[in-house]
């Protein structure tokens, strides 16, 4: 129970990787809140799963692209968990894939707004209590696209690349206060999207990954758990690539 007594906030936590991170933190004894753009369905199911672990849990409907919603999110989480989060996982992300020449500006901007500025907002809202308490863990979920680029996904790659740079800069700013800031870069992960692919497309993708298969959300969550655990007390400003060897940086 390496996270007993900690309060965790995961953005974009109702499904997929965010859900697995929230659950992994709960299984380590932390009180866990997550936000998602949509209430109900997946969010309700994830909240039930969190509660079954026996920890204090909360689900909040919030879009990190909305500054006022982020302010309300942190107030709500503080009340629900009995204090401000001391672990923040910026996982919320959207995609609007299009080749740059054909990508409309509002959609491109929207990706930056959620994936990069949303994370900035949440960091800003989380830092004061972390500095006051002289302990904090921030983990930003990024992507191999940040390091390799990705055709048809320039907005996503740019936002994630920006988030890597934010991670390093903020890590330098707050290190002396006992706050670490790191990133996790998940490669191809077993999700509904991958499951829906044709056998050929799937085989082609797998061939590009040295470990020869997609990862699972739980494998990504394990890396986040490491970064927020006492085992990672001397790790800050770095990116942990959990991608089966795809990037190798």
């Amino acid at each position, binding site marked *: 129970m390496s996270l007993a007594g900690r309060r965790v906030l995961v953005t974009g936590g109702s499904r997929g990787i965010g859900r697995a991170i929230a659950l992994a933190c709960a299984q380590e004894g932390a009180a866990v809140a997550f936000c998602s753009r949509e209430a109900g369905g997946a969010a309700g199911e994830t909240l039930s799963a969190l509660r079954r672990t026996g920890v204090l849990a909360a689900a909040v409907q919030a879009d990190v692209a909305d500054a006022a919603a982020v302010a309300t999110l942190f107030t709500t989480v503080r009340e629900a968990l009995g204090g401000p989060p001391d672990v923040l996982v910026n996982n919320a992300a959207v995609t609007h894939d299009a080749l740059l020449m054909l990508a409309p500006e509002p959609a491109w901007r929207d990706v930056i707004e959620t994936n990069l500025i949303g994370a900035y907002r949440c960091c800003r809202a989380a*830092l*004061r209590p972390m*500095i*006051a308490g002289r302990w904090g863990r921030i983990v930003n979920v990024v992507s191999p696209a940040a390091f390799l680029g990705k055709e048809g996904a320039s907005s996503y790659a740019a936002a994630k690349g920006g988030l890597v740079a934010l991670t390093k800069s903020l890590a330098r*700013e707050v290190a*002396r*206060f006992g706050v670490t800031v790191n990133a996790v870069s998940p490669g191809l992960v077993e999700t509904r999207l991958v499951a829906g692919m044709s056998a050929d497309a799937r085989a082609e993708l797998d061939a590009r990954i040295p470990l020869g298969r997609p990862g699972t959300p739980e494998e990504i969550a394990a890396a986040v758990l490491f970064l927020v655990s006492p085992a990672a007390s001397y790790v800050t400003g770095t990116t942990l690539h959990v991608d089966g060897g795809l990037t190798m940086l």
Partner: protein
Amino acid sequence: MDRDVLRAEVKALLAEGLRLELAPADIPDDSPIFGDGLGLDSIDALELVVLVEERFQVSIPDEEIGKRAFASVAALVEFIAAERGT
């Protein structure tokens, strides 16, 4: 609150909160809080923001206001007094 009392409180907070090697009474009123004066750098300002906000119930939301508030002990005292309307 009386300015002298507030000034003493601010100096005590600086000395203790930021673990200065100066006694509160030895902190000058008019030299800059960050930079050369007290041996504090701009990142130490983050901690002072947190301490001042918590202690005096004021808000230092951004760099511009922070620069003004932390120009000197005297400026910080005036900032707190103005924010609290005293």
